């Protein structure tokens, strides 16, 4: 069994960079989803799975604030050296809609890597099954995590939920990595007709006994449901949160969520103590 992740996981002692990065490529996945491939070897080489960046979206100061985005993949040259990274984005408002209009060669100001990473199993711990549960654009940090886990010889399985088949994300990443995938859609157009937590629970019932670790990122109701599943199955769960934030550096105090604190709770920053938290530390309301 893995040691339980500590509250707030680990903050890698890597410096934060503020860089002007050239957009190499923008790949449209659907009318609302796209992948940005950015230069930025420093961030790519030093980031850990689960960390994020704050990026400008264009617009000359309007919108004013950068947007937080999980690092999706590290891009490497033929020698395996990190040369850049990608972001997986869904249009949710004006900022992400502006980002969708960027062109290769455009420059974005990017701050990172930021926040805590997923806590990886200690080297030498017995093999466990690592189950990644994702809904919608919450898929973004998981290909990098899957890659890291596979590199260490762990078994990885992805549970992907979406409203409809066309909006399923990261399928090509998991195919590329050789990760087994379970799918659910709200409208039944692909995989199981229902919620991603249902395919997760079904899988947990059918699987053979043995250690397993859960990871989840997606809409709040989904993460809350995964937390309930994890508690019933007595499995550790790490959750990755998103929240509106102005700075990403821990100064603005806008991205807070409630974490258990002694007998009560306190507000902690998603950008600093998170975005990855031990689900047992989160006050789910």
């Amino acid at each position, binding site marked *: 069994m893995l040691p339980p992740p500590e509250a707030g996981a680990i903050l890698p002692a890597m410096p934060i960079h503020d860089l002007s990065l050239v957009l190499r490529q923008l790949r449209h996945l659907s009318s609302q989803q796209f992948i940005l491939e950015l230069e930025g070897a420093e961030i790519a080489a030093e980031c850990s799975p689960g960390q994020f960046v704050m990026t400008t979206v264009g617009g000359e100061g309007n919108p*004013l*604030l950068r947007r937080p985005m999980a690092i999706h993949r590290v891009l490497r040259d033929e020698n395996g050296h990190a040369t850049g990274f990608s972001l997986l984005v869904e249009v949710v408002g004006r900022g992400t809609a502006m980002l969708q209009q960027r062109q290769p060669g455009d420059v974005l100001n990017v701050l990172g890597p930021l926040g805590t990473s997923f806590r990886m199993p200690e080297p030498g711990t017995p093999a466990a099954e690592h189950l990644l549960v994702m809904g919608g654009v919450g898929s973004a940090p998981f290909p990098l995590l899957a890659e890291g886990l596979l590199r260490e010889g762990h078994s990885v399985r992805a549970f992907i939920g979406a409203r409809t088949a066309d909006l399923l994300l990261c399928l090509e990443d998991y195919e590329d990595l050789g990760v087994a995938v379970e799918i659910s859609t709200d409208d039944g157009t692909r995989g199981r007709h229902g919620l991603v937590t249902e395919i997760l629970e079904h899988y947990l019932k059918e699987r053979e006994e043995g250690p397993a670790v859960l990871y989840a990122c997606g809409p709040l109701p989904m993460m809350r449901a995964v937390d309930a599943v994890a508690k019933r199955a007595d499995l550790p769960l790490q959750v990755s949160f998103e929240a509106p934030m102005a700075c990403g550096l821990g*100064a603005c105090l806008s991205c807070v969520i409630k974490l258990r604190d002694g007998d009560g709770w306190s*507000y902690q920053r998603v950008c600093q103590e998170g975005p990855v938290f031990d689900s047992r530390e989160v006050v789910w309301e």
Partner: protein
Amino acid sequence: MSSMSKSSVSLAVDIGSVRLQNPILVASGTFGYGAEFADLVDLGRLGGIVVKGLSLHVEVGNNPPRIAETTSGMLNSIGLQNVGVEVFLEEKLPPLQQQGVAVVANIWGRSIEEYVGVAERLDGAEGLAALELNISCPNIKQGGINFGKDPELTEKVTSAVKAASSLPLWVKLSPNVTEISELALAAEAGGADALSVINTLRGMTVDVGSRRPTLASTFGGLSGPAIFPVALYMVHEVRRVTSLPILGIGGIDSLDRVLQFLIVGANAVQVGTANFYDPTLSARLIDELAEWCGDAGLTDVTELIGTLRET
């Protein structure tokens, strides 16, 4: 050429008895306790760091959502969340002291007693250059009226804190008043050593889909480039009635804004919301200011302060 002229320009300014190495500070609530920016900014180069507002006890803060973006600005309603003065002294101040930067403690309270309590606790703390008084807080003992909206309360809280501490006292004025000059005079009468002008402007936005306020606490404080002309005008108004040093605050996003504040009579400025989206701006402004002064033939930045010409 420019590097020669840059090095020969003196950027030092005096805010009363406090000498700052340059007039570019960072504003309270936008720079944490400094350490948050240490990877990106050489803290020792800044004119000063005004830390996140401190209260006597830990403050939990408001429910999220706490921010909303607006046109060239943002609303915030953090609810004064902070670690409390004890944790500040034990954990946050010592690393800042080693940076050799002027540290200004922004303080607030819900009663005059609370303000005085924080001020007394900070009195004598090594490495503090000044106190900055946030008077945009409701006074729970007098029907919740903001100290900063009432000249009498402003004078009262200022003189009470002044008596409780030997540190220079800067009073941060609220713009949510009819005549800011009246509040400036009240703070001066209470013994303020300098005035920070301005705090955020009150505002709100609504999510049309849900018809609910975007912020959980309904309203918040507007900051960012959108408020710059208001802030500049208020510095101008305050400068007309007092010779106290002024720290200009509001919407600084470029050297041009810094220069405008200095010309209308601010002795120094505080960079605020820009720290969120352009975290290295403050340090760049120091270089740009030196270069601009050199190119303009100034040997001392103070030659620029208060040089607004009549129309």
